[in-house]
């Protein structure tokens, strides 16, 4: 395959970035998208040019590190996959591919396509846990969980924290991310005791960090590589209302 790449290049957080156009040839359609970028970088280095920086690690769709905005969509044109699971056969010979970083105020660009997502860690630090110390836990089967709730909790817990929901949202809202964690614990008996404090603190932190509000366009759900449902946002709203009112 022969491709034209329009890649966002930005020296560091303070510099102004811009799109730079490159051409790339001899790409196998069986190559993954990130392997295509590896080949591009090998070419850059051999021509004494700066390789493009992008985050990636497990390359099997579970670590949540890859974060590319490809042709106007987080993680690119394939549904329910991360960029590392996207393959070049989803494109055509001669295509122009535009590659950008996540664009959201709480995710500042570090360099090129790499952004800082520590805002997500900060939200979790505010209450995305059950306060239990090591060693103090009761016998596991003393806590019974209905199979239905366990499955729903797992659906929510499958979030990989990649940030595609924020990147997809016109408001840069982190509601899908926050609601996935809130839902996981709201559905389990272990999570009840701290539920009110948890939702208040996590929502407050989310707002303080500059994430926007949800205006129900559901772009987050459409782009989530793990198919996290927007119904979690409804549950988050319910939990939040209850915590505030009751």
């Amino acid at each position: 395959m022969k491709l034209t790449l329009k890649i966002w290049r930005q020296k560091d957080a303070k510099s102004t970035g811009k799109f730079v156009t490159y051409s790339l040839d001899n790409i196998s359609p069986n190559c993954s998208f990130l392997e295509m970028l590896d080949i591009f970088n090998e070419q850059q280095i051999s021509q004494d040019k700066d390789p493009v920086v992008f985050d990636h690690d497990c390359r099997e769709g579970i670590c949540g590190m890859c974060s590319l905005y490809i042709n106007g969509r987080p993680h690119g044109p394939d549904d329910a996959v991360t960029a590392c699971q996207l393959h070049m056969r989803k494109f055509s010979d001669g295509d122009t591919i535009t590659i950008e970083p996540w664009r959201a105020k709480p995710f500042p660009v570090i360099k090129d396509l790499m952004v800082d997502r520590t805002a997500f860690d900060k939200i979790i630090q505010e209450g995305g846990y059950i306060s239990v110390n090591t060693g103090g836990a009761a016998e596991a089967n003393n806590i019974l969980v209905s199979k239905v709730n366990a499955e729903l909790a797992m659906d929510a817990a499958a979030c990989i924290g990649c940030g595609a929901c924020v990147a997809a949202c016109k408001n840069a809202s982190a509601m899908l991310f926050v609601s996935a964690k809130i839902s996981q614990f709201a559905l389990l008996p272990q999570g009840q005791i701290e539920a009110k404090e948890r939702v208040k603190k996590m929502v407050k932190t989310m707002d303080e960090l500059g994430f926007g509000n949800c205006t129900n366009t559901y772009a987050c759900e459409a782009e989530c590589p793990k198919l996290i449902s927007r119904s979690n946002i409804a549950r988050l709203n319910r939990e939040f209302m209850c915590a505030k009112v009751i």
Partner: protein
Amino acid sequence: MSELNSKIPAGPLSSKWTQYKNHQNLVNPNNKRKLDIIVVGTGLAGASAAASLGEMGFNVKIFCYQDSPRRAHSIAAQGGINAAKNYPNDGDSIYRLFYDTIKGGDYRAREANVYRLAEVSNAIIDQCVAQGVPFAREYGGSLENRSFGGAQVSRTFFARGQTGQQLLLGAYSALSRQIKLGTVKMFNRHEMMDVVIVEGKARGIIARDLISGKLERHFGHAVVVASGGYANVFYLSTNAMGSNASAIWQIFKKGAFFANPCFTQIHPTCIPVHGDYQSKLTLMSESLRNDGRIWVPKKKEDAEANRHGKLKANDIPEDARDYFLERRYPAFGNLVPRDVASRAAKERCDAGYGVGETGLAVFLDFKESIGRLGRHVIEERYGNLFQMYEKIVDENPYENPMMIYPAVHYTMGGIWVDYELMTSITGLFAAGEANFSDHGANRLGASALMQGLADGYFVLPYTLQNYLAGEIKVPRMSTGKAEFVEAQKNVQLRLEKLMAIKGKHTVDHFHKELGKIMWENVGMGRTEARLKKAIELIRKLRAEFWKEVKIPGTLNELNVELEKANRVADFMEMGELIALDALNRNESCGGHFREEYQTDEGECLRNDQDYKYVAAWEYKGEGNFQLHKESLVYEETEVKQRVYK
């Protein structure tokens, strides 16, 4: 050669750990606040250790190279976690979990450590459930179990095919709570470059801030390395791209012994290599072998036609197929252990019967089971894996057989530790896959998650405290101390040396070359001649690397190629040690298969007379390693041959 002291407590096996805990030294709360601990790595072992130590009141600093601690590669573990709960009432016990692990490791693991692992396994499940890990449940609300390789009982707890993810997020949540409380300080996008030793004790690390490129000095009264395994020395593996062995290699160079480096695990069912641009391999869960049949064509010309795209698998008639596992192992068939299945597939491909574009693949066929059970049953059991396969290979595995090939997956070898998980450097500990102690020569499925969390939640909080009880009079040291300055200077010199090479070839070029040497000569089937050849080739490649590697950019900035070069430089040295250890071990056991040492039926032939020991290597300069032996004494288990026919 000296004997190593593993500090195993006296007394009967089943009471050793209790005895240890009853008599260990403690640190009072006021003193805990004055003691600093450094943890390197945020996977299951590192995150759980840091969270637990923070809860206890110690000051913890934790480091990871990723953008967030939640990304550590423990997250990719699929299958499950073992524990001896005996919920299904099928006869499980702590002893049975212990025994299966020792036997599964082909009698090359340390009894006392493995017994403790089985002993704390139940508390891990309790802990994780309390954290809100959404394990699979029965309709009555209790926890569900499934069976896994190497055991006759169902003792595996799981959260769909994402057990590693859920356990890691549990540990990450506990860690996050401590970060908020201020007991743990997180350093993401930081890489440990070296350990600092002051008067014979580990007292800190030199870390590189990967964004600014600046080197930093960090003090700790003790240091824990939980940086994972070294499978990426093979370039292609199921590990993450960033998984590296630099932390363990640097502590090895400072005096921590490296144990059984040749014990590497090759997983039989991975998606095959499809081109030289490939960057990593994807695992297909071994559960697929319950319903899939593995075969290659009987005739070489059929295999060749398939390789050239002229003959499809479905067009090869039944009587022209060789179900080689069923043929060779009629009793276990497709369900032989990982090492046996991997070697058999390689044997067929080497003999010219491999399929797919590269000829390095065999078929895993579900046609028979779809016919017997119906497609919906197969879909229910393996739907997510079939989908993953289709995304990567672009072929429908319900209609065409999957193509699979073995890939490097896990490393049982690692830093030598004693019963307290302390390395041969005082005050330096190693946990999780980074140490060697529990899996012997072969790890059973669902045991890696168990070990990582056992080390972090339930072993280090005791043993580290025991060590630190003797350090309460040591005040925090200034990182201006000569030892810190010197260590930083050495790191700086090494990085400058790398940058100054300005050669012709990229880092990946060298890493791929190293991977090829390792895979061809130090992979599934090893011989004396090939191992010797590997050592020679690695030395040559290493010399070339230090002359010809090309790293763009500068030192004091975000420089991904420099990070990679630094790791590959260490892999280049480590590959030689793996080959040397394999050469030294004149026997076959578990994942280590020396072709010279096999039974008439092609099985592992152990030599308990001469090799029932842990090979712990000491660094004596580049390419110069001294062997120390820790004899393995089996008091509880009878050492036997494993048979699968």
